[in-house]
C-alpha cells in the first residue's frame, strides 16, 4: 500500500451533499470494468453528459483541476453501497486525500485500505476551502500533512484534523491490515479455543 505523509496540490471542489457510491462508480461499471480502468468511469453520471461528452461544469473536467490530488466534497460523501471500487476509481484518478464534513462510514473505512486519506472538518471550514479552491484555481494549492495532521490552505491559517492514531500510523508506514493482524494469530487461536467452550453452537464443524 502506498504511504501517505504529505501532499501539495490544487483541490477540486464537489460540494453536492450525499454523493453516493452508485454515483462514484455505477453498478454497470463495477461489474464489467477491470480495476485499473475504473477511474475512467469515476463519477460517470456527473462527469459525462448523456452523449458521452464531458460535462464542462464538473470540476474534474476543468483544466485547473484535472491533475488534482485532493477533493473537497459535501456532507455524507460516499454513502450507500459498500463497493470498494468507489475508492479504487477515485484513487485511480490520482486523488490521495478527500476533505469532507462527513463520510459514508463504509466508504471511510475503505479509504484506508487504499492509501487514500479521508479528512473530516467542520462544514464551514470545508465550504471556505471550496471557495478558496475556486478563486484563482490554478494557484490555489493546499497542503495536507499527515505527520502534523494539518491542512494548509492557499490563504489563511492552517487547520488541524483528527484521524484515529491507529489508522494514521498505518497510512504513514503504508502498512497493510492483514500483516498487522497476523501478529495476533496466537490470540485468535486462543480466542476460538475458549469461545468454543462457551459458545459451541458457533463452531459448525
Amino acid at each position, binding site marked *: 500500500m502506498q504511504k501517505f505523509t504529505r501532499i501539495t496540490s490544487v483541490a477540486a471542489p464537489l460540494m453536492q451533499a450525499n454523493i453516493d457510491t*452508485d454515483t462514484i462508480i455505477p453498478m454497470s461499471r463495477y*461489474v464489467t470494468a477491470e480495476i485499473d480502468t475504473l477511474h475512467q468511469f469515476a463519477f460517470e453520471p456527473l462527469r459525462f453528459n448523456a452523449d458521452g461528452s464531458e460535462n464542462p461544469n464538473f470540476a474534474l473536467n476543468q483544466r485547473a483541476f484535472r491533475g488534482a490530488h485532493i477533493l473537497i466534497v459535501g456532507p455524507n460523501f460516499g454513502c450507500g453501497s459498500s463497493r470498494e471500487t468507489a475508492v479504487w476509481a477515485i484513487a485511480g484518478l490520482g486523488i490521495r486525500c478527500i476533505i469532507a464534513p462527513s463520510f459514508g462510514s*463504509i466508504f471511510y473505512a*475503505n479509504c484506508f485500505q*487504499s492509501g487514500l486519506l479521508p479528512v473530516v472538518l467542520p462544514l464551514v471550514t470545508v465550504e471556505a476551502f471550496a471557495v478558496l479552491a475556486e478563486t484563482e484555481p490554478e494557484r490555489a494549492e493546499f497542503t495536507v500533512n499527515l505527520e502534523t495532521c494539518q491542512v494548509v490552505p492557499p490563504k489563511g491559517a492552517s487547520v488541524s484534523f483528527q484521524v484515529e492514531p491507529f489508522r494514521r500510523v498505518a497510512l504513514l508506514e503504508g502498512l497493510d491490515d492483514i500483516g498487522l*493482524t497476523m501478529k495476533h494469530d496466537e490470540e485468535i487461536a486462543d480466542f476460538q479455543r475458549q469461545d468454543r467452550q462457551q*459458545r459451541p453452537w458457533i463452531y459448525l464443524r
Partner: protein
Amino acid sequence: MLSDPLTLIDKIWDQHVVADLGSEFALLHVDRSLIHDLSGARALKTVAEIGHSVRNPELTFATPDHTVSTEPGADHVGPQYERCVKPLRRYSQENGIQMFDIGEPGHGIVHVIGPELGLTLPGTTVLCGDSHTCTHGGLGALAWGIGTSEVTHVLATQTIIQRKPKCMRINFDGILDCGVEPKDLILSVIGRLGAAAGDGYAIEYAGQAIQGMSIDERMTICNLSIEMGAKIGMVAPDNTTFEYIAGRQFAPRDEEWELAVEHWQTLPGDEDAQFDAEVMIAVAGVAPQVTWGTSPEHVTAIDGLVPDPAAEADSDKRRAMAAALEYTDLVPGTPLDGIPIDRVFIGSCTNSRLSDLRRAANLARGRRVADNVRAWVVPGSEDVKRAAVAEGLDTIFRDAGFDWREPGCSLCVGSNGETVAAGQRCVSTTNRNFVGRQGKDSKTHLVSPGMAVAAAISGRISDVRKLLN
C-alpha cells in the same frame, strides 16, 4: 465493584474482542462471514495471491445473488455468469466453503438466506461485503457491511479491525395504523432524521412497535439503517427471535440449543444502560410513505405533495432537492398520489421474504395490474420461492398480471442486466432511489410491498389504504 450497565451492542462487542488495538480500535472475532458473487471471488483470489488461506472455511458461506438472472427458464444465467458466478463457485470449492448454488435450497439474496438458514444468530458477528448486512441485526446479531479489502482480511484472519461505534437507540412508541408497514415507519424516520443521522452509530431499535413485529419485519427496519448512515442496526433478541430460529438448518439443537438460548437471554441491554443518542418516535399517525427524489431521505407521506426546494432554508439541501426533482422529473406542489408509473418491483433484501409476498398477494388477489405497467415479483430466495408456490402465491400474482420470477437481487441494483429503461418510473420495494440505481436515467420511488401493489393496480403512485376499504 458494580460494573457499568451495558447496552446490547456493548455486550456483543465485548464478547468478540480478540485484541485491543488502542484508540478505541479492536480486533474482533467474526462468527459468520458471508460472501457473494460481486466481491466474493475477487476477495478469495486475493487471499491466495497474498499467500494466505481461508482461516475458517466452516464459518464462511457463499451465494450468488447480485448477478444471477431472475428470468424464468433462463437457469439464472445472466450476462455476468462467467465473470462473477463461476469463479465464486470454483474458489468456494477450492477453499472448502459451502456455497448455496443457484436453483438449490438455501440459494438467494445473501441477507435473506443467512437468517433463513439459521446461520445468523443472536449475539453473533456477521460480516459481508455488502452494505445491507445490517439486515441481520433483526435477529440481534452485530452485523455490518465491509469493503472488498476487509472481506479479504476476514477470510484470511476470521477477524476484523473495527472502531467501536457510538450507540443510538430509536424507541418506537405505539403501534402502526392499518395499512402502514414497517417499511413506511423506517422511511419516515429517515425522512425526519436525514440520510446521515446515523453516521458513526450503531442503532438499536426498541419500543412497543418493535416488540410486536415479526423477525421479517424487524429485518426490514434494520435493512434501512445504512440509508440513515448507520452501518449497524439491531433489535434485542426475545422469544419471537428464539421461535424464529428454532429448527432452522444451521441452528443449534438439543443441549446446544438450551445453552444458546440461555446465552441469548443475557444479551439485551441492562435497564439503565446509557446511549450516546436517543430518539423517540410516535408510531401512530405515520402514513404510508413514498420517496420523490434521489435519496431515501427525500420521502413524504402518500397524501403529501412534491416539496418545493424554494421553501428549504438550508442552501445545500435546497440545491440537492432541486437536482433530485430535475432527475425524477417532478414539479413542486404535485400530489404524489396519482403520478403515473411504468414499472413495479416487489423484491430485494428489504421486502422479498415470505411475509412480504403474502401481504402483497393478499392485496393483488382478484385484481389486475394496469395495462401500461409491468410488475415483477422476485422472491428473495429459493426457499421463499418454494414456500410461496406451495401456498399458491405465484398463481395469485400471475392471475393478477404480475411476472413471477426466480430469486436474486434483480432490479434492486440491476447488476444482473435487469434494469428499468431510461426515463421510466418504477415503484419499488427496495432501499435505494439513487441516480441510476435501477438503470441509467430510471426513476425510483421507494415504497412498502402494499404500496407497490396499489401502484401496480392503479398504474399510478397510489395510497394502499384505498384497497383496504
